[in-house]
């Protein structure tokens, strides 16, 4: 079952008189429960593709089907709603709110949901997620009191609070040492395998990419190739 599908997606930036085409016709689909790595060098259009996949940006032309809905024409406010309900983000630099406890950080996305959630229920949900990522004893710590790995785990918990269909992780281990990186990637694999959460890992590091079940390569705004992990590279 396809969770998302991109059909002939183009993205062109208009800078004054010049047009800068970044994505030049992307077609791909990702099924539910897949753990996909998106690899590419800087300037390849990887970030732009991720922004479009994450509904932070809209394609200039082409279709984007997410969870059975065509959303390439969605307005900014509609996309905000989609992000809130369907997508979770994990960033390279964690992006936690400073001087706020881990629990409150995890609760933050609930403020923008359409439904009002009671204070107590909010905190319960957040506590459960923090337990799941192994931060039972750190719930009232602030980011300055947490290590890099712990902060990223808080970020992962936050991304899950609204029960998203898709988790987008942009270089999640970029700021972590190798040991902690491994921990985080293992956690993501667990979430994918045990909970069936669809995860897209955006990275330039082949080591990281090998944790994924499928690797999509992008170059110069086009899909260069796909590979199953540990399999031979297939040509498009």
């Amino acid at each position, binding site marked *: 079952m396809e969770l998302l599908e991109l059909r002939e997606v183009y993205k062109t930036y208009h800078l004054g008189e010049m047009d800068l085409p970044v994505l030049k016709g992307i077609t791909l689909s990702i099924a539910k429960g897949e753990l996909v790595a998106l690899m590419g060098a800087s300037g390849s259009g990887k970030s732009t593709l991720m922004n479009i996949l994450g509904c932070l940006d809209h394609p200039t032309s082409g279709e984007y089907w997410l969870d059975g809905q065509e959303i390439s024409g969605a307005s900014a406010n509609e996309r*905000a709603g989609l*992000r809130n309900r369907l997508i979770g983000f994990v960033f390279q630099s964690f992006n936690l709110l400073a001087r706020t406890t881990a629990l*409150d950080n995890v609760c933050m996305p609930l403020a923008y949901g359409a439904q009002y959630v009671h204070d107590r229920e909010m905190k319960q949900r957040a506590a459960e997620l923090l337990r799941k990522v192994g931060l039972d004893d750190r719930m009232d710590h602030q980011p300055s009191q947490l290590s890099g790995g712990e902060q990223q785990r808080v970020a992962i918990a936050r991304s899950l609070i609204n029960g998203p269909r898709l988790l987008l992780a942009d270089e999640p281990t970029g700021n972590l040492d190798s040991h902690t990186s491994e921990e985080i990637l293992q956690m993501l694999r667990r979430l994918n395998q045990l909970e069936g959460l669809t995860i897209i890992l955006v990275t330039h590091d082949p080591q990281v990419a090998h944790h994924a079940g499928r690797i999509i390569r992008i170059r110069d705004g086009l899909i260069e190739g796909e590979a199953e992990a540990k399999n031979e590279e297939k040509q498009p």
Partner: protein
Amino acid sequence: MRALRRNTLRAALTTLGIIIGVAAVIAMMEIGNGSSLQIQHTIATLGANNLMVFPGNAFAGGISQGNGSIMTLTPVDADAILRECPSVAAAAPVVRARTQVVYGNRNWVPNTISGTTEAFLEVRDWADMAQGDSFTDADVRNSGKVCMIGQTIVRQLFPDESPIGKEIRLQNVAFKVIGVLRPKGANMMGQDQDDIVLAPWTTIKYRVTGSSATTQNQSAASASTTTTVLPSQVYPSTSVALYPVPSTVQTTDTPQPIRFANVDQIVVAAKSAGQIPTAIDEITALMRERHHLRPGTPDDFTIRDMTEMTKTVSSTTLLMTKLLLIVATISLVVGGVGIMNIMLVSVTERTREIGLRMAVGAQPSDILRQFLTEAVVLCLIGGAVGIGLGRTCSWLVRVTLKWPTAVSMGAIVSAVVVSATVGVVFGYYPAWKASRLDPIDALRYE
């Protein structure tokens, strides 16, 4: 709200402008309010609802001879005013004199010597005496040689003893002191109201031959153009006539010295300050009728009321209050600019946070609302602290400088409203800027 708690020192410094502005407004308003209430109170004791009717100017051959040069007011006019004008509470005729008062080896020239009736005390709200009693209508009828004196006279002539029952001399006429007035202090023009001797007007006019304070022109020629009223007409004798009444021919053949029973002014108290205009209209109509003035001829009297004076004094204080308010508003505006400044910095600092919030689903309106609320809360807190500070300042002023202050609820309410408004107005632009951020750029911001 947590955002504010995160950086309390900065929040506190930001609101300093608002705090000072609001404190200034509150303190000014309370001091201004206190002084205007003080003035109103003083005016009330001076007789804010008092009117004075003066005789008009004489025109001898088209040239005005000044106020009081015709004798056109009579005590009967005073009675008529009280009887026929519904908005008048009391009226009394007044004859002025200026002469020396002597007691033993002490003497003094009082500021005011007024011949009047008992009603004068009611008009001037002076009915409760400090000692003794007031003279009565019988005293006026009989030209009794009694008087009431004010506190200053007591201080000057009777420093060690009670004046009641003692005799003071005005122009070699001995007056027995039967009452002492309660103290009133200075009036708005700085004159000492307690420097006063009150006696029946008949006594002052006919027995004390000091010149009247107003009329100089008492010649028969000018008097012939007006009606004269003789005392025997005003106060008809109740006893049996001992002699046959002279016929008109006999009276013309034996001219008697004419004694004019005209008074220098009539003081009137309206029922309330609000009824003064009505009272003025009623008195004008009545006097024109009594003096047989045809429509078109000018009034032969003048009515003066205190409201002009009140208005002058209160307009000065009002002007001062307005100026102080302008200064305070300027400081509030400066405070608002400070708020906007800091909010702009805050927005820039929190760009990544804004990007993150948008990434997890915040819409531009959510961001706008968040930052606007922060600005308004900041301003309301500043306003509350400012109100406290302002009240403290005005309390300090009251205790140390002894200036009057009065709590002004209006100022407090408007301070809260103004703080909130400043927050909304000066916080809007930064909040709007925040909401216009693009999440992708914001997330990348260093």
